[in-house]
């Protein structure tokens, strides 16, 4: 038999002005199961809480209902008080007679009547409340970072500096990401390599960081604090431990005509290669598709010249498993290409710009490589077709971005700024050249950003033309740019030597597949979704997984680095405890009645429902039923409402509790 204590609060006059609190208390005392009922001026004050604690002890109370403000305000307060008095905190409920009653009704009689009913409902509910154990889960204090661009590097270094182990997985043979390709960076025009390479080296040398390059995530199991991650280390054909990075193999490899992707296909590389001279790790990899040995079984030059005998043509992919407690996803972006898109791709190319077939129409990243001192032209702006220095360069903004027609409605955020940067770099390098920019708006908010953009016009003499370009076509060795200037209201035609397109920033190919492995959500473009744009911008809705950098949306380096450090801070907060405590509002499966239909599994957005085999003593499989992993369950209750056999129950919101409230009407 329950002995319920009911505590009615006046909230100064906030409640008692419209609700006759004494009457509520006396009515409550008449209700079945109520052993004690009283009212008090400020229940949440120290004396108020003491009153509750004392009553629990003196009257041997088994349950408590505090009728006061919203549970969102003080539920935690009173549950703690109950706990201090020796009750399980989940046997204490609040009846909201302030926000939902005294403040919204003027009629004293009606409000009092309603308050009595609300209290009655909660009394019936609390009777059905069960003791809920505090749930804690252990925390593996190692973090996984996926992606080794500036976002991943920054996050990994921050976590590692805090003394925790970090595993970094990078798909390419070297870390560095897009920032390693940039020439100089806005808004300060400092050299990208100069600020990037020291960080890359720090990372490689950090005692707390394990680096897996040329590797991908194969599988992710587990939940916050307890993930098991399987990593596929792709066959490099070079033994990382033996290789000294001397580079002789590269100089001797006869396959020298392979377009260098890192240089946006302007330069060439060999079949055994490092993507760029400052690569980390400085260990080459054999591109098996282009290596003669793999194609026809002949050659083997690299193997012959390699002193330490690091070349291993027989290497195979290997799978390794790492236990981690938190995951930071930092897989970055790729650029939209204007070439004809593959069938089935929702995004269209740019036929009106020649589908990428005009050699001197390049994208922004290619321009970065041309302008980079370590690039294929040694930092000279030379156009791809004939290596001449272009004297008229046309930049076109918003290519692919902000276009419903091409399937990308968002703004790519960085291209206004990097285009301004490009005009400056161009002007610095080609003094007698002229840069033109076709643009719609200049989206340059940020500290020192607008000033930067203005500088490109006022000091570096770029000509900005407000209007878009309809078509590009080759005419002799020029590219005819058919544009318009909407301010003047006329068509503009420029015969350009080089055209640079600010193409859209898109998520990496396969970003959706990685998200599915991780169980995180993504938007219709495949950018990863944060839990809340303002309040939880670096966390995924899936506990224990955090986001950093351009994989979450277009971002420049300052924003990327801020987010990476924020994600690292979140991970460190998680690692500050040995065990995680969480509200025990989780679903539980009644094994006896579960029929194993897994309707619950289908609706669970968190992947909390697992399959569990029930066997008899001999080990024969009896049935497969659902099991809710309490570490993963977020407590939404969707499974319970879905289960056809009523075999899953959400603690704290059981059918019994709800129906008790309905029946109290």
């Amino acid at each position, binding site marked *: 038999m329950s002995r319920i204590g009911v505590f009615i609060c006046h909230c100064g006059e906030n409640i008692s002005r419209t609700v006759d609190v004494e009457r509520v208390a006396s009515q409550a005392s008449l209700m079945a199961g109520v052993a004690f009922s009283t009212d008090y001026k400020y229940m949440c004050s120290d004396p108020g809480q003491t009153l509750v604690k004392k009553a629990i002890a003196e009257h041997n109370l088994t349950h408590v209902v505090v009728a006061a403000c919203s549970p969102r305000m003080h539920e935690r307060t009173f549950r703690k008080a109950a706990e201090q008095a020796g009750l399980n905190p989940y046997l204490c409920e609040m009846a909201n007679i302030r926000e939902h009653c005294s403040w919204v009704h003027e009629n004293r009689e009606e409000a009092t009547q309603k308050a009595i009913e609300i209290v009655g409902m909660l009394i019936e509910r609390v009777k059905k409340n069960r003791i809920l154990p505090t749930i804690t889960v252990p925390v593996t204090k190692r973090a996984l970072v996926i992606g080794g661009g500036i976002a991943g590097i920054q996050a990994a270094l921050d976590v590692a500096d805090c003394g925790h182990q970090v595993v970094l997985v990078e798909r390419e043979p070297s870390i560095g990401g897009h920032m390693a390709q940039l020439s100089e960076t806005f808004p300060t025009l400092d050299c990208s390599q100069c600020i990037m390479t020291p960080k890359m080296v720090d990372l490689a040398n950090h005692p707390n960081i394990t680096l897996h390059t040329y590797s991908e995530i194969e599988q992710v199991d587990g939940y916050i604090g307890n993930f098991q991650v399987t990593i596929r280390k792709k066959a490099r054909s070079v033994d990382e431990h033996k290789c000294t990075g001397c580079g002789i193999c590269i100089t001797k490899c006869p396959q020298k005509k392979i377009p260098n992707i890192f240089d946006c296909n302007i330069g060439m590389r060999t079949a055994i290669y490092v993507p760029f001279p400052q690569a980390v790790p400085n260990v080459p990899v054999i591109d098996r598709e282009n290596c003669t040995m793999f194609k026809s079984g002949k050659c083997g030059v690299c193997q012959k010249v390699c002193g330490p005998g690091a070349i291993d043509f027989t290497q195979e992919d290997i799978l390794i498993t790492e236990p981690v407690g938190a995951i930071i996803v930092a897989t970055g972006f790729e650029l939209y290409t204007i070439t*004809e898109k593959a069938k089935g791709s929702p995004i269209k190319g*740019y*036929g*009106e710009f*020649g*589908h990428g077939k005009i050699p001197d129409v390049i994208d922004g990243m290619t321009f970065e490589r041309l302008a980079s001192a370590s690039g294929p032209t040694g930092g000279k702006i030379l156009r791809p077709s004939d290596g001449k220095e272009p004297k008229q360069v046309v930049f076109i903004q918003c290519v692919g971005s902000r276009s419903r*027609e091409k399937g990308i409605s968002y703004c790519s955020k960085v291209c206004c700024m990097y285009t301004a940067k490009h005009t400056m770099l161009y002007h610095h390098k080609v003094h007698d050249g002229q840069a033109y920019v076709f643009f719609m708006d200049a989206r340059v908010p940020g500290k020192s950003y607008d000033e930067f953009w203005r500088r490109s016009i006022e000091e570096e003499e770029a000509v900005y033309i407000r209007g878009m370009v309809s078509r590009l*076509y*080759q*005419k002799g060795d020029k590219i*005819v740019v058919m544009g318009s200037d909407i301010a003047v209201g006329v068509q503009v035609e420029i015969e350009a030597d080089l055209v640079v397109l600010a193409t859209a920033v898109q998520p990496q190919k396969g970003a959706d597949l990685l998200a599915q492995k991780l169980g995180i959500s993504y938007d219709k473009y495949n950018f990863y979704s944060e839990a809340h744009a303002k309040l939880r911008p670096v966390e995924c809705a899936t506990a224990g997984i955090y986001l950093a950098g351009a994989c979450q949306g277009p971002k420049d380096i300052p924003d990327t680095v801020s987010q990476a450090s924020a994600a690292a801070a979140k991970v460190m907060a998680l690692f500050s405890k040995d065990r995680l405590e969480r509200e025990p509002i989780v679903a539980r499966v009644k094994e006896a009645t579960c029929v194993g239909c897994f309707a619950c599994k289908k609706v669970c957005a968190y992947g909390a429902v697992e399959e569990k085999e029930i066997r008899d003593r001999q080990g024969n499989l009896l049935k497969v039923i659902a099991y809710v992993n309490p570490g993963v369950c977020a407590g939404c209750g969707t499974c319970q409402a879905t289960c056809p056999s009523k075999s899953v129950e959400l603690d704290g919101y059981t059918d019994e509790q709800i129906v008790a409230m309905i029946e109290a009407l």
Partner: protein
Amino acid sequence: MSNLKYSYYPGCSLHASATEYDISTREVCTALGIELQEIPDWICCGATPAHNVDELLSLSLSAKNLELAEQVPGDMAVSCASCFSRLKFTQHILGKSETKLKLVEKAIDGPVHLERRVKHLLEILARDYGLDKLAADVRKPLSDITVACYYGCLLTRPTDVPNLDCTEAPTIMESIVETVGGTTVPWTHRLECCGANFTLSRPPVVQQLSNAVLESAKNAGADCIVVACPLCHGNLDIRQKEIESIYGSSYGLPIFYITQLVGLALGIPPERLGLDSLCVSPQNLLKEKKLIQGA
């Protein structure tokens, strides 16, 4: 040979100023065993003037033709780019707008048939009949002849309506010309406008735009231009002399209908392809390339 059958909608131009297109279309189809059955008593599609000022009228005229087409089985074959565009637009718009569909039903006082597949002759040759088969039928390959394929506006634009080929970089005409042995050139103006129906009301505009097209083809080294639209043909062929005199140029570019070139390659005698109806005579070119006999 094939057993393809179509309900054929020639359209007004093919029965008047573009008779050679009609004639050559029929000849080519006969040669390939493609059966064209003309839709009895088809009416004008309204062309540009109708949709220009009265969409409802334009939709109704095309809807009426779609209804008339019900008398003849098979997909609808259309050679004129303008008629093709109007029929496709009608299907597109009425498929999307219930309101407009109701109005058109009322205007034509009957049901609207949107299901029938409307195909341009280019699709029929390149896809339904097939390039491989076409290649096998070639008797006199158009070797040595360099062709600029001109699409103009209506065959591919706008996105999602004609769905004949890629809007900005179509290749269907080139693929046909190359299949029958011709050489095609890349050129800048193959999708630019020739001035279209302004030919009556505003010849100077047409002259200016068509001049740019002719100039581009000439500069690209083409011997001739091939078209699949009577409007384009009218502007580039009939007005070519006039344009030359205004702009002081000399192009001398024969403008063929695609069916005329294909017909030649299939070995159909030139006189049956209406070649003598062309204003810019192709005689010299064809003789030079040994496609017709003569001194």
